[in-house]
């Protein structure tokens, strides 16, 4: 398993970095930051399971559970 993962992620080299003036970020960190932005957007945009049904039930006096 470790051999398979090592074939996919070759870490036997210096980290790839992105440089812009004095800012220097590794590609790995940039990927994590991008993932956080994507997950944040999804957390805002995606409806929470059952929230609409509970709100409707509350308005109509039904069982909110």
């Amino acid at each position, binding site marked *: 398993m470790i051999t398979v993962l090592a074939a996919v992620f070759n870490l036997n080299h210096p980290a790839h970095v992105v440089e812009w003036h004095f800012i220097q970020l590794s590609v790995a960190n940039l990927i994590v930051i991008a993932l956080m932005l994507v997950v944040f957007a999804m957390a805002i945009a995606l409806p929470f399971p059952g929230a609409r049904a509970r709100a409707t039930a509350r308005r109509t006096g039904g069982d*909110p*559970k």
Partner: protein
Amino acid sequence: MSAAQTPKPTWTGRVRDAAVEALPPEKLLPDGQPTYVASWIYIFGVASIAALVVIIGSGTILALKGPAWWHYTGIGHFFNSIHLWAVELFFFAMVVHLWGKYWMAAWRGGRTRVWITGAVTFLVAVPTALTGYVSQQNFDAQWISTQAKDGLNSVGVGAFFNVTNFGQMYSYHVFLLPLAVVGLVAAHVLLVRRHGVVPPFELDRTALATRLPQDGGPPPAAPDDGDPPPGPTGVTS
């Protein structure tokens, strides 16, 4: 003043009265929350706490076995990896939660301390992680500590923290800073319980009424019959 409200003669009694007044049982352990709490943003807050529990658990095992254990045993390496990835998830979830609460202006309604304890938890977690990286006892730790030493010296605080001193950094990492993080998280959760989750911004109904028909949506509801910003009484389990 009733008998129940008479100040107790002992400090323990006074502390108990103050604690119960600040956080009565129904606030401390509520069985329902307002409907607006049904949001993914709060999942990430809970995920941060879950990750912190794993961090403390795996870190306790690593501390019990000593800082070199993970270098020469497979099980040690396993727990070190659990510790590392729990930290990654902790920061990931905490940052998403922090972004969400920032854009919700979660400090509204007397919740300044709720916001500050959350934000300071993030700030304290950064040196907690850094001291962990410099406690690895390998070339990675050596590289990070010398870079951090230059960084701390450049901002004038190098006299207070010697990041190349393993003993000092290890003490910070396994005791002082985790204690601060756990204390801040506990204060944050208790303050959330005391003040409640911040309600959403109120809709501008005038703007909504002029916009919805143009969008082809349903007609706007009457102000007293619509979906008002749910208050504390609009609870759901």
